[in-house]
């Protein structure tokens, strides 16, 4: 059981290629981290996997538990178990957080099935408490006027409620203060388990102190160029990306 990304090439529709033959396998039950310089294609990878209409896939496949999801609409991919915590969560005016999450859960039920309101609010409040999100946020419009950190917490709340089988967290740590980072990391850790594979995109080792990854990958120029254990994150923190670029240049010229 895994999310397999095989030889993925993707570009902005009618524009430049951003992902250039990317290979990656995220196993259920494991946490993978991706690090990489700005503009290397990390967010693009997360959006291409989830079906953002700005991008077109020119080659390769993405298999979710063996099923190629590239032909599916974004919502079908989501209902198949894919979740993306956005680097920049979107504001939806007028739609309350509670109604939004409820509608998302309702969309996963069959025709004629109705979400039980009492159970729903019970679950919602429990997860909000874990993430120390005040109750007032249920009535506020989705992400509207939320601080950067509040938006990130709200992404993790949605993930907790929707219980995906594969989750991509795109810089969920950025914008969080130190206390919030601990709370959010605890929230993510609580969701770790055999039923979920996670891909955590981050720039900072700090997050990985709290959410210890099983594997760390480096993404440069639209490809995974290096894969190692958690110690790789420390190395990157200490040395930056130049040494990887140099290694790449050497292997290319060799």
């Amino acid at each position: 059981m895994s999310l397999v990304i095989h030889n993925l090439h993707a570009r902005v529709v009618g524009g430049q290629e951003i992902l250039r033959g990317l290979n990656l396998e995220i196993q259920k039950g494991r946490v993978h981290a991706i690090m990489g310089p700005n503009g290397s294609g990390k967010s693009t990878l997360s959006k291409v996997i989830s079906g953002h209409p700005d991008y077109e896939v020119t080659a390769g496949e993405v298999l979710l538990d063996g099923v190629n999801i590239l032909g599916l609409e974004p919502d079908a991919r989501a209902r198949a178990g894919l979740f993306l915590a956005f680097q920049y969560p979107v504001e939806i005016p007028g739609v309350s957080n509670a109604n939004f999450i409820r509608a998302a859960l309702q969309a996963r039920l069959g025709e004629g099935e109705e979400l039980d309101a009492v159970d729903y609010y019970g679950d919602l409040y429990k997860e909000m408490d874990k993430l120390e999100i005040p109750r007032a946020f249920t009535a506020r419009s989705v992400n509207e006027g939320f601080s950067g950190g509040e938006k990130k917490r709200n992404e993790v709340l949605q993930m907790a409620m929707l219980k995906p089988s594969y989750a991509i967290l795109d810089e969920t740590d950025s914008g969080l203060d130190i206390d919030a980072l601990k709370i959010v990391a605890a929230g993510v850790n609580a969701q770790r388990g055999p039923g979920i594979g996670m891909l955590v995109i981050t720039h900072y080792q700090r997050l990985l102190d709290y959410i210890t990854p099983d594997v760390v990958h480096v993404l440069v120029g639209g490809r995974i160029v290096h894969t190692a254990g958690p110690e790789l994150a420390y190395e990157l923190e200490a040395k930056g990306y130049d040494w990887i670029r140099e290694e790449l240049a050497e292997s290319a010229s060799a």
Partner: protein
Amino acid sequence: MSTEVISQIDVDRTRGDFHYPEQHTFDAGTGLSHATIDYISDVKNEPDWIREFRHKALDVFLSKPMPTNWASKDLENIVFENIRYYLANAQRPTRSWDEVPDDVKRTFERLGIPEQERKFLAGVEAQFDSEAVYSNMKKALGDEGVIFVGSTDGLRDHPEIFKKWFGRVIPTGDNKFSALNSAVFSGGSFIYVPPGVKVKHPLQAYFRINAENFGQFERTLIIADEGSEVMYMEGCTAPKFETATLHSAVVELVALKGAKIQYVTVQNWSANVFNLVTKRAVAHEEAEVKWIDCNIGSRLTMKYPGVILKGRKARGEVISIALANNGQHQDTGAKMIHAADETTSNVISKSISIGQGRATYRGQVHIPKHLKGCKNNTECDALLINSTSRTDTYPAITVRGLGNSVQHEASVSQVSAEQIFYMQQRGLTEAQAMSLSVNGFVNDLVREFPMEYSVELKRLIDLEMEGSVG
């Protein structure tokens, strides 16, 4: 609990799209002439003053040009000669659903009207083509002196009140379509609420068009006497025909000193209906009139509910929601005519344009120079769903005099691809995502509605959005 309500007051357009074979005992024939008017007056056995009123109105109608210079050219597609102006089986509605002819009864049952009546209404009038077929009110209200009947009955049974107010708020010559209505009007409600009586539950009228090539011209007159309160709700549907159907109503409200009238409309005509309606109220001293107007259906709607703020401290309000889908033009707005000191008016309009749909807001606020302490607030927000959608705003605000204040805000926003993607990533289909955005956009206004109607409105929006996404 909410689903229960939905299934019972579900009047979406697909459900309204059915019709029974026509059988009309009274038929004024096709086309419009003075003979048509005599036919209607004869059938209704009307007094001479009304007959004359109708004939004069026809002349005014014929002499007035179509307002295509400022409104839509689509008006030219109305062929007045092809329309039937009066179709009915009887002139008197029954007070019991059991006495309503089977087909007609089945129509209203399919639309859920008798059920709503049992659940939350103080009275119901059901109009089928030109006449009310059913009209009833809780007995207690009758005992308090409340009158709630069809306009035909109102004219016959309460001439002293009827004649005093009829045509006083909206003169025949107000516009071409008010003249047309004045010539051939039939049906609509006549309501009188005596001083101090507060009608707790809403009175409802349901207007149903069944016949093809037909025009419905109901005439509603509501008088709330001093210190009284009433809420009136109207709904409407018609089957979708290939040919155009015309609906042209005139609604006059009179709120006497300290009275309160709320008038709620959920307009869901099929997409072949020209809906050209004139609605206006007079608010006397310290009276309050609130129009809550939702336009979801029709091909072209032109409707600008107004309040003439005639007495000191009178209040007028228009809350309007318009949804224009492909092939629809919702040309709506509000008129606030301040005619006394310390009068206040509030207009909040939200429109949604989908696909090639077009929404137009026309507002008129008039505060003359000699008045003091008047206030108007106008907000109009438009939401565009696609890049082909269209919205126009024409506010005309004439505020003179120093001690008066006016506030005007307008916004146009678009549902962004990023919002849709975000919602889809959470598992909502594109249509569900759109619905949620649209409902979010109108949410604060929908809260002003009686619960039963807000549920219905939400459901109608969902259906529109479902139909609009491929």
